[in-house]
């Protein structure tokens, strides 16, 4: 008889539970619900801010302002997607800002060297993926941690950008209009940038929830040892997620190039912090194992609404970073409090 049948006969021989063994501590909280609570909470906060702002400033509740806000975080939002998945696997990537810039600079330089912009962009994204692969190598084969590896990569790649451009921005006004349209054009009033962003988010949000390959990301981040003891090749998982994060940063870099028509070697400095903050506000844990893309995008949206509000309220830009930092601290504190209550 097969073990499966064995199990079935067990069902008939169902064992009576002694009364004492029934745990009193069973709580009807589950993680999916906790995550959706977090997302719902963020939506409420964002809506409340919007309503309050609509009274404070007549410009806030306009399509123009919304479009500007969406535009402002759409491209960074693509990077947030990769960062969130990397955080779930238990990693982190400080180099995304540099990689965005590198992708932009490489594509721009190749275009100026005579390549058509589409091929140049593909190569730009490709080299970004290679940077991810190199970091993945140091993390999984050499055994360094993500923080240090990506810190080194951040500095090295930034250096490469400066070397390639000799420190001066590349002017790319000769880019063909068809290419520039990616960053500047729109479809029936809806900017392509936003369309690309929504598509990327939708695809990865779906995959993260449904695809087997991404389930392994959660297993690895939740408990790497247990994942290994379940036959999951956790190093492979970490490697490919690292590559994915850099690849999406590369994609963002190419879109920025199309939008600005220039490649600046200092672009994207400090971007990584904003991106990590958004993912964490959205519920991704630095300990790995939890996070959603939808949540991370809401985190990004919250930061963006706050920035926009501060500008409309004529608050000095110098205050912005401080306020963003406070929001991050508040979000993480709430998270910590919830976790502690749970255990």
């Amino acid at each position: 008889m097969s073990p499966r049948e064995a199990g079935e006969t067990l069902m008939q021989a169902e064992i009576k539970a002694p009364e004492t063994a029934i745990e009193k501590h069973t709580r009807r909280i589950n993680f999916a619900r906790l995550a959706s609570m977090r997302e719902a909470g963020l939506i409420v906060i964002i809506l409340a801010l919007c309503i309050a702002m609509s009274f404070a400033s007549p410009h806030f509740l306009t399509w123009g302002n919304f479009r500007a806000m969406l535009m402002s975080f759409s491209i960074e939002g693509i990077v947030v997607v990769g960062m969130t998945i990397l955080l779930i696997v238990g990693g982190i990537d400080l180099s995304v800002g540099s990689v965005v810039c590198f992708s932009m600079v490489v594509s721009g330089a190749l275009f100026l060297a005579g390549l058509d912009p589409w091929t140049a962009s593909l190569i730009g994204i490709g080299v970004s993926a290679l940077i991810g692969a190199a970091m993945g190598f140091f993390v999984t084969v050499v055994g360094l941690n993500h923080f240090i590896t990506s810190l080194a990569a951040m500095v090295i790649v930034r250096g490469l950008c400066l070397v390639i451009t000799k420190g001066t921005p590349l002017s790319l006004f000769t880019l063909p209009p068809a290419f520039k349209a990616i960053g500047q054009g729109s479809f029936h009033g809806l900017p392509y940038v936003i369309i690309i962003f929504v598509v990327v988010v939708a695809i990865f949000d779906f995959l993260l929830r449904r695809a087997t390959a991404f389930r392994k990301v959660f297993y690895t981040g939740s408990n790497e040892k247990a994942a290994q003891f379940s036959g999951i090749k956790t190093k492979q998982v970490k490697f490919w997620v690292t590559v994915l994060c850099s690849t999406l940063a590369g994609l963002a870099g190419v879109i920025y190039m199309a939008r600005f028509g220039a490649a600046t070697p200092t672009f994207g400095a400090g971007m990584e912090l904003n991106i990590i903050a958004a993912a964490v506000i959205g519920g991704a844990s630095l300990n790995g194992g939890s996070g959603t893309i939808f949540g991370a995008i809401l985190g990004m949206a919250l930061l963006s609404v706050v920035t926009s509000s501060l500008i409309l309220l004529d608050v000095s830009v110098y205050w912005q970073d401080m306020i963003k930092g406070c929001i991050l601290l508040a979000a993480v504190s709430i998270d910590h409090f919830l976790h502690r209550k749970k255990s």
Partner: protein
Amino acid sequence: MTETPILEIRGLSKAFGPVKALSDVRFELKQGEIHALCGENGAGKSTLMNMIAGVLQPDHGEILIDGVAVSIPSPAAAQRLGIALVHQEIALCQDATVAENIYMAAINGRRAPLMNFHRLYADAQKVMDLLAPIPVRTRVADLSISNQQLVEIAKALTLDCKVLMLDEPTAALTEGEAQRLFAIVRGLKDRGISVVYISHRMAEIFSLCDRVTVFRDGHYVATDPIAKSSPDDVVRKMVGREITQLYPDKLAPGQPGRLLLSVENLSDGKRFADVKLQLRAGEILGIGGLIGAGRSEIAQTICGLRPASSGTVELDGTAVRIRNYSDAVKAGLVYLSEDRKGSGVFLDMPIAANVSALDLGKLTGSLGLLDRKAEDRQATDLTKRLGVRMAGIDAAVSTLSGGNQQKVAIAKQLSIDPKVIIMDEPTRGIDVGAKVEIHRLLRQLAGKGVGIVVISSELPELIGLCDRVMVVREGRIAGELGADELGEEAIIMLASGVQNSSNQEKQAQNVA
């Protein structure tokens, strides 16, 4: 006995959730004696030590020092009372030097703002040299386990204590190192320091100690002067109780079926060598031995979780090549980790996701998407069969009790229809009710042809549950006990090596 004992325990109880670790125990340590504390794993020895050292707080009962009841709310408080504990597990700062570790408490209490390294090294070296000439400027991480154990002991020696408690101090030491330790312990005794000595090794206890106290299942059994006791007597007191009703019926004689798992010549080049193991359909094979004997390493190597240096594994009559754990899973051989929370389950993930972790492939559609309905069906099925009590299959595993967490881990193993399951301490830290359920479950699985190997440190479990028990000692198979030979004394003797010495004695007597 008119003299006031330096340490006295009265009516001490401690429970961890539903599990009673100690109930109403007493213990008495006289000034300047070496007092052995014996008992099986789980008898409550370490729990008692941890309470005396301020790591745990008792639920009831009193601790008296020099006849005065005291409360010991923290390890620092214990230190102030002159109590030092050398833990079974090594708890040193791996990146600090030996000297810094030895004087950690002193450094912590130091008022001066700067370290006096010159004096630190000189003093530490003096203490260390009493035990072994380990250079104190070495980083602890660069030392072998046995040397780390010696550092741990040296650290306790500096604490100027009145009561020194040693929890299995020789478990990781070589014979020579152990002898040096005994000499030092005797020296401490001569200086009037009282020692509590926990060990499984009867030979040590009988050459070193003055009195012996035995615990069993969290209860006090007896205290005897060593001179009036014998190893057999102590072992008998450690064991011996009614356990038969708790366990399912065993296999009738002559019943085991075809060979399911056959391991020959297995070595890993480090922890164990030359392991031969055979498992037949229908039987439950137990593996016993002391902690650290290499039982888990053997199991993990069979399953490809650790590299083997030599050996063959045959599963159901065909040789299988297992290079990693996925190979083993594909072949139908699974391992249940002893460290449930650390490597058995994904605590913060839903039950359903835990059950499906071992084989996602069969739940995956052609597009690489997970079939959530099939996943839910599988989890519902298996959890129902195993009687997991839960809010629902979406609940996080962390919301379950230990026993139910373990059932989820077993459900994960069953999800691939395994041929053989090797279970490492399947009922550790689980309350009695859930334990009985898991034992019945294992017997039923075995009855249906799944090969079951159970590694356990609990002798009653090995004896009550298993049809046959292999005992591992220091990385070798020390012996095998069939159904009619199974007994706690027999296992302890094989595991601790007492048998050899008593055999030698018998031989010596025969010769004489």
